[in-house]
């Protein structure tokens, strides 16, 4: 049981040096107690304070080392207080540590601590926070050094990591402040290169990412969050709209062969990073085109497929061979892949619609769709499906919204969404719901289907029951309850259930691969390595996580590629410091929604121009038009560049 000796984390001082130590868990600080196979974590120092888990930690050395790393590794040097101030701090702390401290030194640290408040960004500004904590709470240690009572160099090993709340929250951990700053500086190509270090499909994630980063944007605490997602589209569109060739070049060939199953976001991402490392990568894809769920599950008016194709072309240009129309389990077995390749990545997605659990849905009635994802795919691939005049879509997620909007474009006169809770509880992005409404979609909230009404084997309506919201459940959403006897029938020609998808892992059934599955029929991987129980077989994206977001798939695909590279070159599927610290900080949480920023706001975010609702409802032309670059620059100017450095002492 790890015990806290001292903590100033979150600006709350816990000082147990004299009393009994408290358990770390009691402080609600999610810091792990050990780090990889390197040993126990003795201390953490970062933007929001210090956590000491060991009495023996030399706080002067900790402060000096932290400031040295901030200045030498991370300070961009682009503002005077940061560039110069952290150097003076570094040298002052080093002088104290060397036993040459002067009485004036602590005053200098104090004064610079205040001056750094006027830094250009928060990197240097926040780095002085834990140092001041130590100076304030451990004056004896500092003065002992100044008296020449120098401690011997400890055996602690330090590991640091640069992060930002947005970067941390992004499942792909893109260096968001950096690419935003590049836009601010009119450096669109550099911005795109920066994005591609973590995200090879920026045209996709600049359009259809649910952008969790924006809910961790500190600018949001001042006025409105930065439009991070749209700013990602800008450099991606810039490259495309200028006919530029992407600059990436793969490293020298390693001779290792990898197969990636599925050309969706996870598979494309994994293939991209493996190819850059010089591995020979082949993708097999069951559909006739790249993109997986993004291609056939997200309509063209949100994500034009020619751009998805361009992203796949970029991956292919690195030497990745993509074979379309090849399905694992049907055309090839996992065993064959294992035999032929040095490693396998499974990115097979989640293509099985969940049943609604209503009477008649398994009867194969005409007018009853197998599921939202099937409907969208049939339309996307032009499979000859005719959408009738009155369509009901059941569900409240993004897929349900996509279905009602596509149905309108496919000629439905009434496109009705039935959802058992209210608009507020819908998991779909609120702006997607607004867009659907503008286009003429009708909503039936607090209604739940109970029975399909059919005539001659054909759907003619859905019986629904009126629902009421009860108390919030574990997920925080108020759970709906049926009002007995309130059933009535909504007439319609087609019903599309869109209440979720599960992975289809039937390809694992032809042999005992030893790969564990969850009860939601997703693949189990271990410790952030993305490796399954079968050595050399990795998995990521919806088939691992369950139906989730594009950006989660990208994050997992990238992590898998990094670990696979180590597996292929070092024979070990393990995390490196970057991965491990990424996970550690993510666990600790970088964004603090209660933070007082202390800046004057009042600026609104920039918005992309949009085609008007009724006009767009009849076409698949992209609804959101590109944000003009001048506006993008203005938006990027709002970024507070919330960099911060965390460092652990391990030993």
């Amino acid at each position, binding site marked *: 049981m790890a015990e806290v000796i001292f903590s100033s984390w979150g600006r709350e001082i816990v000082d147990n040096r004299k009393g009994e130590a408290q358990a770390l868990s009691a402080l609600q600080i999610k810091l792990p107690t050990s780090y990889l196979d390197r040993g126990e974590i003795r201390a953490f120092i970062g933007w929001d304070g210090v956590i000491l888990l060991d009495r023996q930690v030399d706080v002067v050395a900790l402060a000096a080392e932290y400031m040295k790393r901030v*200045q030498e590794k991370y300070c961009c040097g682009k*503002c*005077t207080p940061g560039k*110069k101030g*952290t150097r003076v701090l570094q040298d002052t702390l080093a002088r104290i540590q060397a036993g040459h401290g002067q009485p004036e030194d602590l005053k200098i640290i104090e004064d610079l601590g205040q001056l750094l408040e*006027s830094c*250009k960004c928060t990197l240097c500004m926040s780095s002085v926070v834990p140092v001041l904590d130590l100076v304030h709470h451990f004056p004896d240690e500092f003065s002992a050094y100044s008296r020449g009572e120098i401690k011997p160099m400890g055996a602690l090993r330090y590991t640091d990591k640069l992060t930002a709340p947005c970067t941390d929250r992004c499942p792909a951990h893109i260096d968001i402040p950096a690419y935003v700053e590049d836009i601010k500086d009119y450096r669109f190509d550099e911005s795109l290169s920066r994005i591609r270090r973590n995200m090879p499909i920026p045209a996709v994630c600049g359009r259809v990412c649910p952008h969790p980063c924006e809910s961790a944007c500190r600018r949001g605490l001042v006025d409105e969050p930065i439009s991070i997602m749209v700013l990602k589209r800008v450099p991606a569109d810039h490259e495309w709209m200028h006919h530029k060739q992407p600059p990436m070049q793969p490293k020298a060939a390693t001779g290792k062969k990898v197969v990636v199953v599925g050309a969706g976001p996870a598979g494309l991402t994994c293939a991209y990073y493996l190819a850059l490392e010089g591995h020979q990568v082949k993708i097999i894809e069951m559909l006739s085109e790249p993109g997986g769920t993004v291609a056939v599950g997200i309509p063209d008016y949100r994500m034009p497929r020619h751009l998805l194709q361009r992203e796949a072309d970029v991956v292919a240009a690195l030497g990745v061979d993509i074979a379309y129309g090849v399905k694992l389990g049907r055309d090839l077995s996992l065993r064959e892949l294992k035999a032929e390749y040095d490693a396998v990545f499974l990115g097979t997605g989640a293509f099985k619609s969940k049943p609604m659990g209503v009477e008649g849905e398994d009867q194969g009635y005409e007018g009853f769709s197998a599921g939202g994802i099937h409907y969208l795919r049939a339309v996307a691939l032009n499979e000859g499906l005719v959408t009738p005049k009155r369509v009901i879509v059941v569900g409240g997620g993004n897929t349900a919204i996509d279905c009602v909007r596509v149905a309108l474009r496919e000629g439905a006169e009434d496109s009705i969404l039935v959802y058992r809770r209210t608009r507020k509880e819908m998991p779909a992005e609120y702006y997607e719901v607004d867009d659907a409404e503008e286009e003429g979609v009708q909503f039936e909230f607090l209604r739940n289907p109970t029975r399909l009404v059919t005539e001659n084997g054909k759907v003619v309506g859905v019986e629904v029951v009126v629902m009421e919201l009860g108390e919030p459940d574990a997920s925080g959403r108020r759970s709906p309850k049926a009002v007995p006897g309130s059933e009535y029938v909504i007439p319609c020609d087609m019903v599309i259930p869109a209440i979720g998808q599960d992975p289809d892992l039937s390809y694992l059934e032809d042999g005992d691969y030893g790969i564990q599955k969850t009860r939601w029929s997703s693949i189990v991987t271990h410790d952030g390595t993305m490796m399954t129980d079968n050595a050399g077989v990795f998995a990521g994206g919806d088939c691992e996580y369950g139906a989730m977001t594009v950006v989660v798939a990208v994050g997992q695909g990238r992590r898998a590629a990094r670990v696979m590279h180590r597996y292929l070159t070092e024979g070990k599927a393990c995390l490196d410091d970057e991965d491990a610290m990424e996970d550690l900080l993510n666990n600790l949480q970088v964004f603090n929604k209660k933070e007082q920023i202390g800046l*004057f706001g009042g600026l609104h975010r920039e918005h992309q121009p949009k085609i008007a609702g009724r006009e767009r409802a009849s076409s698949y032309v992209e609804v959101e038009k590109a944000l003009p670059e001048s506006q993008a620059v203005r938006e990027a100017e709002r970024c507070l560049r919330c960099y911060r450095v965390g460092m652990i002492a391990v030993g």
Partner: protein
Amino acid sequence: MLKLKIDGSDVEIAKGATILAAAEKIGIPIPTLCFLKKVSPTGACRMCVVEIEGADKPMTACNTPAVDGMVVTTQSEKLRKIRQQVMQLLLVNHPLDCPVCDAGGECDLQNSCYSLAVTHQRFEGENLNHAEMNDWPLIQQIPSRCILCEKCVKVCHEVVGASALAVHARGEAAYIDTVDGRPLNCEFCGNCVAVCPTGTLNSKPFKFKARPWALRKTPSVCTLCACQCQIDINSHGNEIYRITSDDAGTTNQGTLCIGGFFSYGFVNHAQRLTSPQIAQQNCDWDQAFARITTEIEAIRASSGSQALAGLSSPRLTNEENYLFQKMFRVAMGSNNIDSEARFGALRAMQATSAVLGLRGASHLLSAIGNSEAVLVFGADPTAEAPAVDWQVQDACRRRDAKLVVAGMHPIKLSKFANVALVCKPGTELELANGISRLLYERNLLQTDYLNQALANPAELKVHLDAINIDKVCAETGVERRLLEEVADILGAASSVSIIFGAEITKSVRGYEKSVAIADLAILCGALRNNSAGGLFPLDEKGNTQGLLDMGVCPEYLPGYQPYAQARESFAQAWKAKLPETGLDAMGILAGIEAGTIRFLYLAATNPLTFPNAKRWRKALEKVEVLVVQDILPTEVVNLATVVLPGASWAEKGGSVTSMDHRIRSLSRAIASPGTALEDWEILATLYGRLRKQAVSISRADILAEVSSLSQLYDKVNFAGDDRHRPCLKAPYRPLAKSFHYQTPQIDEIQTGLQLVCGKSPYHFGTTTTWAAGPLEIESQGLVRMHPLDASQVGVGEGERVKLTSSKGSVTAVLTLDDSLPAGLLFAPYHFANLEVQTLVEDGSNRVGVTLAKV
């Protein structure tokens, strides 16, 4: 508008403006160091911190937008302390070499330190200053003096678009270097030096030459190209030490190119002509004038006035060109006058005049920056008119315009283009027609506008119907999908700028190609809007517009009055009998060859740089009397019967007219060397001697005479001489039904290796081949070619090749350039030792050549 309060004063300002701008508006000074108005805010120095009610932390005024209701304090004890401490930090490890620092006396850091009374230092840190970079051409970088304001990085990236500089390393070790860390290799425009607030980036030619406070600043105009940027000549005694330009109040916002910044060296060149010469021997002015008048009178007596001819120069002022044509027409009785504009600018002008009634650019340069789409066609603005390059970038990089670059090879601006079309040499007319056809085919024409603007709308449809796109694509070598994209871009934009240059106008079918581009300008509405878009023909020479405005060609009297029609009225005004006709440059050349032209007067021009230069050389050798008025001993000076030493642009007054019709005044900053005279004085004296009548050489008098004879300059009125504000000619306002759509046909398909002669971005005419600055960057003319073409004859970088055309052969050193398409060679024409102009035919800029290893 937003309302805010700064230091208790109310201010209203437009949305999007910063606190700094709001403070400036009401005259509240906020200290800054890294702020540079013409680039995006950096926020590096933190000197401009202010307090805002409701904010706990100080915020920077330079990059914080004003918000309605904001209450700002710019001066307080807290802020003063921050600024002082920031200054102390800036001075940590800053060398105290102010006495030998180039910026001494004009250093922003010194000034800020002084005004904040920072008298002591309490901070110290390890000195990590990067070593000096002394191996860059023309520019030295001393990182220890750098405050990392990034002005240099930003002006280079955002304004010039060379993107040569970057911040390297982290923390206190951060420094500015070239992007790849190798010696600087860029446009050498010097803007990084100009914006540097300290002595970090220094001009090597200026270093240790003079202290800033000892220099006299004379406001003037750079006449090396037709953009005519506004400059200050920094001189001491009779020497120019440097050229500067203020950001505020100049049309070029202080931005200069290598021409403006580094090319003044020819002015004080040791070989400047200092004395008149007869038969290559020094003489005095009286002897020189006497000899010329004697020769003229003798030839007039024996062969008549038609045996006299003269070529003038876009290097001369409006007044000088006016006097030149008047001297020939009135005092010599000859209309055999012309200039090098014959081989380019005049063709474009005749074309735009026939189609649009337009002579020169249709709008101010700023209209390019304001447009929604820009087409650069057969031009390299970076070389031909750098301020146009900056405007194009302003449009497409900062104001969301789309850019199309079309021509036979990529140019610098291609990297910013949405579409860059590379067509086969000589197919520019087909390309223009193809775009026109697709505008029509894709329903992108504004029919109402066209019907209203065109005198002959019916012909338009007939012509467009006849264009076959597949044939266009085959002939030009351009993909249809790209052409369609171009049509969509030009068709969708509400304002379009079309810029065309030397590779159109100087080609042998330059007239027809210019017509096709003028047609295209009509179709995409380039002439519709008064403040955005327009048609911009480029000519690289400084005062070509003024030269033509003044009527230095046989077909026009001043103000483009057709010679035949206006001859009588001018004769009355000038109280003289004017000759009936005159010869143009080619006629003069043929006349010399035939022996009918016996006297040639070259005013600041060098026909050895004209196409088919060998033919010109023979003619110059043959002509009985050759008078050369120039400033440097060029090769034609060596052939002259009489040499008249003139003045450089820094040594005289008078006005010049820019490509966008602004008229600006030169100022005499220094005296000419020896007994050299201002060119207008030479012309006026000669006129006086021939005509026995004195002529004024005052700008006001001459311009008054011009405006009394022509409407073109009648609105010109210089407000004052101190700041030399440009004034404008009457703006171009086309009348309804005034456009004449034309359908030129040419057949100019050529096969085999093609050599194009053109302008280098580092040199301007021949004068800068006498200037140390540009010579340090480009010391000799190299023939650029694609590695494939070089490997075909087994030659590599730096080796010598022999180029042979139908006109002869030259040997040249080659340099490999894979940005050129294979099959196309490019050679700069400026250098006397690379006689590429001898390879091309009369009036052409391109020729088929064969290559051989030497």
